[in-house]
């Protein structure tokens, strides 16, 4: 099993800017994505979250946006898994991803990402 490395990134956005988050489960697998702002669950959705408004730059300052995705191996062709993230609203958009691989068909992996809003 290849566990995915945890993503830990800082992201800065102007006070008035809307910060939007996109998350995608790749490699044709099925995953349940949860987005937390601080300790609070904001959204839970399967496979894809597109341009979710997580808040303004001012409201998020000092907070951590955490994304947890539990990915299931549902394809016989591959045991590879990946989760990609996109953040926009700051001076530059941020695109990061991480991947993992399970040993046996039907296994699952937990992907963790944290975005510290500056």
């Amino acid at each position, binding site marked *: 099993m290849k566990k995915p490395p945890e993503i830990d990134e800082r992201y800065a956005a102007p006070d008035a800017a809307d910060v939007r988050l996109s998350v995608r*489960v790749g490699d*044709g697998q099925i995953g349940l994505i949860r987005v937390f702002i*601080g*300790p609070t*669950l904001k959204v839970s959705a399967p496979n894809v979250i597109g341009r979710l408004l997580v808040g303004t730059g001012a409201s998020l300052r000092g907070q951590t946006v955490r994304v947890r995705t539990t990915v*299931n191996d549902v394809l016989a062709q591959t045991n590879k898994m990946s989760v990609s993230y996109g953040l926009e609203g700051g001076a530059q958009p941020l695109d990061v991803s991480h991947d993992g691989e399970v040993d046996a068909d*039907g296994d699952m992996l937990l992907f963790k990402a944290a975005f510290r809003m500056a």
Partner: protein
Amino acid sequence: MRRLLPIALTLFLTLTARPLLAQAPGVTPTAPAEPKAVTPDDMRAPTSPAFALLDVSPSSVERPQTPKAFTVNLISALRGSDGLPRSYAVEVAPFWLTSHPDLTFDGYYHASVVQTMQQTVTVSLATTPLAGASADQTFGSSLGVGVRTLLRAGNPHPQLQASVDELLAATAAIATEQDATVPLEDERDRLRDAGQTAAADEVQRRIDALEASLPKRLAEHDRKRRAAALRIQALDKERVGFVMAVAVAEAWDFPQDRYDQHRIARWGAWATPGYRALVCGAKPGDCTSTLDVLVVARVLQDRRTSTDTLRDVGARVAWQPVPAFSLSFETVRRSGGTATKTTPDASARTVGGFEYRLENGMLLYGSFGKNFENVPGGHTLVSLFGLNVGFGKKPDLKIAPAAPTP
């Protein structure tokens, strides 16, 4: 008493290949190499065309899933032999050798024709010893290479969404437990940012303890989750709607294992469009009322025996209106062979059949039609009726426990 034996007795009421035409006196039947009694199912685009062309069913097929594994595999096969490795089989799905972060589950199921071809293409390669004059003699090697892909992969199985929902429900239950550490992680990070390292470490220990206890607490949810995930994998192989597979393959012989003596031994091309309709209930596997239509076209040349190019076209329709009863009809036409040039009618097979599952495991079946004329003037009637009588799986008699040994 009829359930005493866990075996089935098959009673055949068989009138197989009864001659319609008497053989002409003085004609010595010969055994022509073709036409063979192929059926549409035999003519499907093979999963591994290279193996099919070499007539091999390798007991061990290498299926590397990464470029590194593929390279290592190939190098080790070449190193382990003096030249071309004999009795080697490998099958690779190039698309799946690398990761595809942009490919979502929906994207996988709703792929364009080009994307479907990429996702489903497989390359098979096999080598076998080239048989000599006697069975235990070899005087070289044969190499086969084949490619197979789907132009259309069909629509999702009707029960796929129910399995996906079941998987997500089990995953949500697991996620609730997994996410119990999120508030602690948030607290840990705040303590670290405030420079309270010892307190942060203490919270980290609580996180570690919580995560260590997860597998035991999640066992039941994980069992349901895994079952649903594996069911989704299985349903991917049972798609409905329009499916079209194509394959090509070529095999070469290398007498004396010399490259300069290589020659094309066989080549073939297959196209298999098909359509499948299915009506399913809510329970897994509860599917009835199926209609399967399969059209097959195949071109084959076996240069070891002839320079003729055989062209086969066939179709099969199977209808199962209720689980207990099914009807089928199939027809195959072959052209291009020597025998078919002289007697074109010899190259057709048209057969209809039925199956009716009676109570107590009994199966009534039959088929009727015209077969290939393998021998000039030989039997061409297919007339097969049978009753398969099952005796059940559970014995009525209780078996006494073995007497205790002194």
